[in-house]
């Protein structure tokens, strides 16, 4: 991690903190917790729930972006994983853990396809993953037979609805995923290699970095994280829905990674930043709905705030503002 990442992480956390502070003042019910049907609810719990789903994907996306790529297929991958788990559990009667495992494997396979197109066929990441994104949605429809597949297995339902030690299941899964990603990228050379490939593919190759292996691992991990997010979403709505699951997930994940200080040019990256970015994004959506901004209009003000956060992180812009400020 470079010094610059550390700074942008601080900015992302500061922006999130400001947003929470605003809500504490402007909407009194924001941090209230209630219980209904034995299930914790409240705006803040919702944020944790949905923000965690974005955060899980943002972790995988961050590594992909570090290699100078981008994975647009995460939404479709989530849909595939949800469909696989729902079909295997409800129609084929598989136990919950093997259905979940199969869903995650399907996600990793999607990542591997993207990696193959990027590393072997030499397609640009944005094109390769766009292909997988479009095709993946169709595959999800085929798997589920063209409609939502309800899920009733109590273990699978608990995944996205349960609460353990006061935190929703999705938040626990985010913590576990973050730990796994931190181990994979910082306790092995994967993080260094991914950053090297992103900073300069030519130089990385001459230094002996196994570029293809790195790409396969990184896209595979991203697919895995998308599949996990898909499982959480499927659990939350209690059905594998191929047409709406994971819609727009790729954009939220990319935004979260960028807000967290990972540059789309590739190179250095920040996993913590991605989580902070995801939480910021979800808090922003919740804030807008708490302020009674209709969900049809909300994307516009949301975009403005995201733009402001990204702008304030830019060292160049800050330098320019400082220059203006001087007499």
């Amino acid at each position: 991690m470079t010094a610059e990442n550390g700074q942008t992480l601080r900015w992302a956390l500061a922006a999130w903190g400001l947003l929470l502070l605003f809500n504490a003042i402007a909407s009194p019910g924001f941090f209230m917790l209630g219980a209904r049907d034995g299930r914790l609810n409240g705006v803040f719990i919702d944020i944790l729930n949905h923000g965690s789903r974005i955060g899980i994907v943002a972790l995988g996306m961050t590594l992909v972006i570090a290699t100078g790529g981008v994975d647009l297929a995460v939404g479709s991958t989530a849909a595939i994983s949800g469909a696989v788990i729902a079909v295997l559990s409800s129609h084929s009667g598989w136990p919950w853990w093997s259905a979940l495992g199969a869903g995650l494997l399907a996600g990793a396979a999607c990542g591997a396809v993207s990696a193959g197109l990027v590393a072997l066929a030499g397609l640009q990441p944005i094109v390769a993953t766009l292909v997988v994104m479009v095709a993946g949605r169709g595959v999800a429809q085929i798997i589920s037979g063209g409609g939502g597949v309800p899920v009733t297995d109590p273990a699978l339902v608990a995944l996205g609805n349960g609460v353990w030690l006061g935190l929703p299941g999705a938040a626990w899964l985010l913590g576990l995923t973050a730990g796994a990603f931190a181990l994979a990228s910082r306790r092995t050379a994967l993080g260094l290699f991914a950053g090297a490939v992103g900073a300069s593919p030519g130089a990385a190759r001459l230094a002996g970095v196994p570029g293809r292996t790195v790409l396969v691992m990184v896209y595979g991990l991203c697919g895995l994280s998308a599949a996990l997010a898909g499982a959480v979403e499927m659990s939350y709505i209690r059905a594998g829905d191929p047409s709406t699951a994971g819609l727009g997930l790729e954009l939220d994940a990319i935004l979260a990674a960028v807000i967290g200080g990972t540059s789309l040019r590739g190179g250095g990256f920040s996993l913590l930043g991605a989580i902070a970015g995801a939480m910021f994004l979800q808090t922003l959506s919740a804030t807008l709905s708490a302020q009674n901004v209709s969900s049809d209009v909300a994307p516009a003000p949301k975009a403005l705030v995201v733009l402001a956060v990204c702008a304030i992180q830019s060292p160049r812009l800050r330098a320019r503002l400082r220059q203006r400020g001087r007499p």
Partner: protein
Amino acid sequence: MEAVGHITSAGRASEPAALRVRGARKHFGPVRALAGADLALRPGEVHALMGGNGAGKSTLIKALSGVHPLDAGEIELGGRAIRPRSAHDAERLGISTVHQEVMLIPGFTLAENIAFGREGPWRPGRSREREARARSALARLGIDVDPRRELGACSVAVRQLVAVARALDVRACVLILDEPTSSLDRDETARLLDVLRRLRAQGLAIMLVTHVLEQVEAIADRATVLRDGATVGEVVGADLTRAALVEMMTGGRITPADALSGPGPGAPRGAPPARAGPALLETRSIAGARLPREVSLRVRPGESVGLAGLLGSGRSETVRLIFGAERMRAGALLVDGVARRRWSPRRAGRAGFALAPEDRRTEGILPGLSVRDNLLIALQARRGFRLLRRSAAREALALTGELGVRMAGPGAPIDSLSGGNQQKVLLARWLATRPRAFLLDEPTRGIDVAGREDVLGLMARMRRAGMALVVIAGEIPELLRSCTRAVVLRDGRSVGEAEGTDLTEGAVLAAIARHDR
């Protein structure tokens, strides 16, 4: 060319300066790049801006060309205070700059590169006009290339000259050239210097940044020397000697004799390596896709073999082939006497090879990553995904101290280091893997006198430690200093060899220049 000597500039000394800088200051975060630099550039002179790596030359140029505004200080152009806010702004004011890293667009044609950003909207016949104009601009520099060619398909030398043509395409009164000859061969350098003489006679004020002292002596009327971001002095006419410049630049740290004389104490000539023993590396008529066509050479441990030849003779391509960076189309590559078929940089690294590439910016450093990451990458790549042991990493990082890398710390971004220090980090990257053979493509390009001495001394130490070196150096004296043997390449073929007492500048030059096809 025109007989414009030192007298001219002395005669014009009373004229007002075309460009004057007073008390220029600039910080980048905690790093002080300029701390009170002064400069006066007169019309009709070639003014050399000298200084070691990190002395502030590039920063000063970037301030003049509007890339980085100054924190404090004044810039006057023709007696009027200016503050260029962008490169375009500076150009409009009459300051044209050719930067060291050529800022052109590879996918455009030469003509488009010369004209872009300066043309009006499209109208019929514009592209033909543009091509005609480009043709005459290139002819003015004496190069014969089709302006409709794509820049990316041209050699580095042609790109450099196109950048000069682009700078001259506007009505400039000040022309700044940052290391313009670093990628040019002898003939091309001479041609560029001729062009500069012609432009000087036309009254243009030319600022030349270069590390090559011979060029300064050959062409400059005046030189300003920077050290640690401040001007240490200006020399004119008869005082403008290599010895004086070296002393001013280094503050007496290096005696001029060290930097200028031929073989120094580290020179290998005295101790010829054992001729016996198997070759560590042998190539038999190897050929690449285009270049080289047929190169055969043998390198033993403790031997330093120089590749001599003109630009385009296939020197860089040969070392890239040896390192596995390009596909071999014919011939055989033997390491320790065993032919290697499946060969790649990764395998080469594991076999104990190292490469310092010619193009540091795109193939050497990992921009945006820390010095630490840049240093450890090769050692880590050799070990695989299992993280380096802390002690191994610490040992590798200690190399930066040993090589005298000047930096804020191992966490600093590599981009914040000067060119010479970046090169030292790249050498350290490979030395950390304890290579048996080091391929060095222009290892001292763009590096100041002191840094060059460091690198050349390091190469001598590597050779004495039993490493095999293959060295490419455009400067023949440097090649002679660092090599025990020279192989001459011409048109992608190895055509001659010189060793021992035959290894002289004259012999090598004659072999390079001979035209017996």
